[in-house]
């Protein structure tokens, strides 16, 4: 634990996820065509990283990224995460990354965070930042579960945060109210798109990002107990896109009013519009 008022040791959990906007279903199986998928940094994790950078700018410190990955993500994404302000990136390859089981993900991530803090960075984390959810599975569970596994305070859906001495102050916007919470560090905070607007990195940061360390941990190095605990609680039966066959229907009629009336009737009978 860092001394009050001194520099912050921040870990940001980052998910390299499929870009769902560019994901197409396989026409034969309706399952997502992962073979042709494009990858991206989970958007809320970009908010988490940006928030970490802002805290570092104000208080000083060091930011490391930790990512549980099924396999090595495209290197340009790793460079982008480093360019955005990470001092180092730790990749933890594990098949569970694809399981979609937030309990397993959080258990391994927490074990990795402990290991990285104790063995590699030789700090105990002041702050762990996560995105509110990930844009592919959208469970929103990993952050709080990591906090639980680490035994630290979770603050979810924070829209503003700052650190004063050894206290974190976070605002959470809840409809018409702003909920202000304080906690003594260490804490885990989840943030989303309302928290900040991530800035674009400087061109030189991108070109030089490859010089920053990327460390690949094996889960074998993590505590045995952690992996034993990380037994799946969910079984993923399948992911399929809803059928959306094109109807190619031409609605005819006498003049625009008549066509509009017929179109509305058709949409209602198809169940696309309610009365």
């Amino acid at each position: 634990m860092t001394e009050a008022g001194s520099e912050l040791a921040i870990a940001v959990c980052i998910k390299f996820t499929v870009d769902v906007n560019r994901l197409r279903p396989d026409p034969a199986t309706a399952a997502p065509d992962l073979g042709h998928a494009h990858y991206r940094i989970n958007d809320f994790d970009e908010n988490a990283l940006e928030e970490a950078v802002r805290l570092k700018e104000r208080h000083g410190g060091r930011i490391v990224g930790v990512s549980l990955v099924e396999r090595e993500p495209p290197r340009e994404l790793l460079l982008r995460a480093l360019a955005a302000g990470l001092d180092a990136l730790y990749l933890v390859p594990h098949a569970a990354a694809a399981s979609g089981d937030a309990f397993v993900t959080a258990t391994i991530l927490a074990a990795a965070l402990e290991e990285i803090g104790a063995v590699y960075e030789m700090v105990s984390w002041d702050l762990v930042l996560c995105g509110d959810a990930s844009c592919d599975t959208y469970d929103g569970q990993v952050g709080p579960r990591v906090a639980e596994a680490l035994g630290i305070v979770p603050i979810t859906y924070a829209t503003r945060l700052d650190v004063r001495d050894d206290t974190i102050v976070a605002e959470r916007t809840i409809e018409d109210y702003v909920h202000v919470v304080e906690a003594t560090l260490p804490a885990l905070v989840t943030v989303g798109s309302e928290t900040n607007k991530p800035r674009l990195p400087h061109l030189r940061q991108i070109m030089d990002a490859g010089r920053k360390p990327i460390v690949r941990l094996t889960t074998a190095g993590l505590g045995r107990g952690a992996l034993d605990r990380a037994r799946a609680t969910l079984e993923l039966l399948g992911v399929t896109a809803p059928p959306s066959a094109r109807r190619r229907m031409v609605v005819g009629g006498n003049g625009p009013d008549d066509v509009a009336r017929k179109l509305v009737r058709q949409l209602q009978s198809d169940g696309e519009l309610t009365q």
Partner: protein
Amino acid sequence: MPIDFTLTPEQKALQKLAREFAQDIVQPLVRAADAEPDPQKGFQMMKPAYEQAYELGLVTAGFPREFGGGGLGMTDLLIAHEEICAVDCGIAFIIGVQGLGLFPVMAYGTAEQKKRFLGEACNDPTHTYQCGYAISEPAGMPGGTANFDHPSPQAGIQTTADLVNGEYVINGRKFWPTSSAGWDMKGATMNSVVVRTDRTKGGLEGLSVLMVPRGTPGVRYEPNIDKMGMRINQNCDIVYENARVPAENLVGPGNGELVVNNGFTFTGPWIGIAATAVARAAYEYVLKWSKTYTAGGTDPIIYHQNVGYMLGDIAMRVEACRYLSWKAAHYLDTYGFDGAQGLSAMTKVFTSETCVQVVYDCMRVMGCNAYDRAAHPLDKLMRDMLGFPIFDGGNMGMQRRRLWGLMADERFDPRAYANCDRVHFGKENEGIGTVTTRPEAVRELATAGR
């Protein structure tokens, strides 16, 4: 070892940065700035995007690291430039013209000049630094630009600079320079100006470049040129009346015309990829349109064979232009401006003329709706595109003359590019085709020889 067109992870990350800058920061400003009737206002509307580009290091990307630049090579620059041009080539030229403006210093400057001028360019706390590049001159007798390397002192560049008591005194007029008048019409931070420093010598010996800072007395900026396209760019009309600059601002004495030709070598691939990007924007738009628009038929028009074939022809020309530009950029990175002249000229001419046809073909595929300027972008793309064959050294004069001068040389090896050899270009390749074959002049010469 294969010929490698693979983008490195760094280049892909750079491409993404440029794409995000273009889409998030440039795109929202473009339509209104293009539609603005006052050319200076349209230019000023892009200032916030320029400042952001400066902040992100895009403006100074090509300058060496030791002065504070990004240290990118030409190939890297092209990857970023294509993405910005695909959204708007105008802002891309506002961002990029510093590279041309400071090219004389980069290529011909002394160590002291590099430190001073490049250092200033790369470290502006206001993020508004600009450097224009002024060669072109207005119509008149003589006038125009295409014969800048004419052997007669009475032809070609007519803006003069005389050395008086340690200062150059400039007189004359420049027409067209990009961004030279600055954000407030009081001058860009700096302008490099091609001038005749020896009134007795022709274009191969009498020209040099002067660095003219903002605030130099005797420089006047007339209202900007009102253009059909690239309306986001500021194109200036500058008058010099006994404007004085210190002698140490002189660059490339007696080599002004080589600076011009080598500057074009530098811009060849850069304009090539910009033309590719404008054509790409038209192609992508029309491809999408062809997959959704039915023209009153039952199926999207892409299922008509003529549309499918035409889109294929459009796509293949866009790809060909991109790879030619990359090749020229790679040549420039490998051999420098002196060795890449020929390929650069080929790239500028081929891509600009091909891509005009590509954008026009996109309009043909789309049909009448392409002409609707409120609903579709083809109008702006075509207006912008039409500038490419005639700016940055008109294809009909300067660009084809460069290539001609090189090919007419005894030493020219037509296999040089296949062998990936350096192809030297020097003063001996300049000046070709500047002396006309006007019948009376030919008869006078024949009589004189008798």
